[in-house]
């Protein structure tokens, strides 16, 4: 009898403990492309997000609750949509973060908004995402337009000055892969370059999945531009550089607008020839003097953990996953004190972080209802980096840069 009651007591306490455990977990959905052609950066973005969750949990969680990410593989827009359905209805999650790619974000957030949940975007940059007037859609990162504009501004403020020329005497050629990402960045770059007085010869689109870009590179040759601004995906970026070398196309400056241009694999594939190429996007390497004490410490801790876990330093994409997710947990959910979408929305709208307050150098303030870019973080901005000695360093804007631009004009291929 005694044994029986002891067993019963043990069983009851075990049940109670699991119940208590279940109660103290807050689940947040995380949608990223983990298979298929976007897997590389989708996984990297998620890895950053996971470190944010670990750090919050180790520091005691939020209001006594442990955070758990429920991950969905959104490898295509169709899958993004069905995974968003699964997370919001079957798993009954009200807060969903993601998505790295804009196309996937469009599809997934449509579902989440309809079901009244919060969608927290930490990676997709297509302008249109925050033009839909969604009530519960928040984007932490800068937009494609901002990124393209920066490429043009870098051309006038840094490159033209180094060349001792006026924009009107410099020919700019914009080339881009023809998805939403490439098109929106490149058209913003083209428009801004024209505003700044550059002689923009043309804007040429191509398919990222192509196996050959000699027609594009021969167009470059025929055009003979001083500056090329390129939005590319992966193999296309490599083809452009290699075929430019093979076909002898030399320019004064080459600017890539994020993606592969900012990844170690780009430097590895080109060797020393990568030096001098510019890249506009966010950066994990902004001048720490421009960061608040707390965010500088967070960035350092994040880099340490990421390197330990994955054997490589985090790229910008991993860092944006970390920064966006940490912001959601530490600044928004903590303040809201609940996973109720309405409370979370109010808490998000109340966030007011000055510039330098995140590890990427940005501040955070979301555009309100009346704004045509509702839900956009108006304090996010891209930076310009340059490959120098096989590494990326931030060269503009001056507030966050760590080095001066060099190798302008770019040496000819015979000297690279």
């Amino acid at each position: 009898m005694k044994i029986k009651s002891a067993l019963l007591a043990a069983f009851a306490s075990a049940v109670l403990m699991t119940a208590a455990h279940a109660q103290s977990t807050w689940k947040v959905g995380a949608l990223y492309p983990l298979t298929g052609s976007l897997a590389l950066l989708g996984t990297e973005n998620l890895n950053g997000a996971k470190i944010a969750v670990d750090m919050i949990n180790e520091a005691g969680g939020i209001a006594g609750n442990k955070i758990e990410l429920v991950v969905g593989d959104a490898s295509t827009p169709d899958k993004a949509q069905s995974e968003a359905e699964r997370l919001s209805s079957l798993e009954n999650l009200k807060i969903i973060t993601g998505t790295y790619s804009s196309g996937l974000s469009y599809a997934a957030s449509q579902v989440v908004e309809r079901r009244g949940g919060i969608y927290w975007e930490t990676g997709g940059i297509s302008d249109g995402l925050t033009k839909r007037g969604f009530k519960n859609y928040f984007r932490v990162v800068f937009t494609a337009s901002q990124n393209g504009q920066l490429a043009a501004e870098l051309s006038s403020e840094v490159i033209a000055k180094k060349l001792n020329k006026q924009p009107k005497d410099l020919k700019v050629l914009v080339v881009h892969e023809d998805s939403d990402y490439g098109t929106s960045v490149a058209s913003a770059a083209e428009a801004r370059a024209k505003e700044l007085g550059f002689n923009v010869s043309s804007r040429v689109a191509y398919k990222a999945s192509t196996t050959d870009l000699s027609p594009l590179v021969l167009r470059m040759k025929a055009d003979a531009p001083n500056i090329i601004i390129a939005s590319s995906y992966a193999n296309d970026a490599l083809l452009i550089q290699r075929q430019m070398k093979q076909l002898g196309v030399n320019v004064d400056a080459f600017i890539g607008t994020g993606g592969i241009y900012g990844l170690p694999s780009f430097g590895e594939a080109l060797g020393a020839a990568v030096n001098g190429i510019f890249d506009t996007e966010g950066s994990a390497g902004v001048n720490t003097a421009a960061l608040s004490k707390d965010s500088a410490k967070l960035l350092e801790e994040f880099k340490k953990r990421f390197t330990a876990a994955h054997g490589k330093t985090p790229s910008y994409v991993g860092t944006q996953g970390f920064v966006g997710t940490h912001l959601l947990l530490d600044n928004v959910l903590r303040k809201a004190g609940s996973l109720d979408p309405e409370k979370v929305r109010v808490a998000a709208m109340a966030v007011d972080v000055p510039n330098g307050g995140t590890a990427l150098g940005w501040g955070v303030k979301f555009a309100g209802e009346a704004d045509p870019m509702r839900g956009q973080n108006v304090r996010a901005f891209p930076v310009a980096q340059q490959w120098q000695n096989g590494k990326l360093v931030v060269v503009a804007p001056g507030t966050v840069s760590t080095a001066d631009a060099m190798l302008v004009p770019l040496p000819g291929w015979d000297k690279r």
Partner: protein
Amino acid sequence: MLSILPQLLVSGVLIGGVYALLSIGLTLIFGVLRIVNFAQGEFIMLAMFGAFWLNLALGVDPYLSAIVVVPAIFVLGMVVERFVIQRILHAPHSMQIFATFGVSVLMQNLALTLWGPDYRSVITPYTSQAYTVAGLSISATSLFAFVAAIVMAAGLIAFLHFSRGGRALRAMVQNRYAAALMGVDTKRLNRLAFGCGVACAAVSGCILTPMYYTFPTVGVDLIITSFVVVVLGGMGSIAGAIVGGLIIGIAQTVTGFYFSVEFKDVVALLLFIVILLVRPQGLFGRLGAEEMGTK
């Protein structure tokens, strides 16, 4: 603008060689087994990873790595034939598509799990090298791919026409059952042909490693044009794969420059449709080839 035409033609011929190289294995497999192998791109991807790892671990030149990689993929191809292809040889087309497509998805995700999604690359002294002849630039890697395509095609054609095994294969292609009655071991020949077809993919993988990034879904991007090339050249025709590759390559490069880089594939496909309207069996194909020998 017209002064650039010779260079466009040269570049078009070179990329055409790459397309031909990628297409030979596909057309060989179709020619013998009457199966469209949707996993062909993944065998290319595996070979690229093989070349990459051999280069990273032992510093082997990617071209040389073919000595190890091609036999390995050949064996893998025979295994796949034994356990997948053989079982669907007489199944409806839709099932054959599902089966080879399934192999493709499996291999992609296996590569993703084993090696991760990173873009890997091999740098060799000839990676971005070009020869200049009469003011025309010739990419070293593309030239090698072109030469490899011609050698591979010539070797296969010679094998099919002048060797005993090749005669048996052609007999089987004409009529499976008659050939079997004459003592041809059709099962063994099928397996051999599939192994050879994916070994061709492996050769192209090793040769293309210095040109492109290696990653789990690279096969999809590389093989897509080959389907067009194979149909254009005539399904099952090796010479057709070469001519088809060159036509598509030149059409894409010339129209890409003068008309639109973005729509260079569209133009090539329009040409493809026009040729098929005139010659539905493809340039070197025979009418009804897809059913031939299976009934």
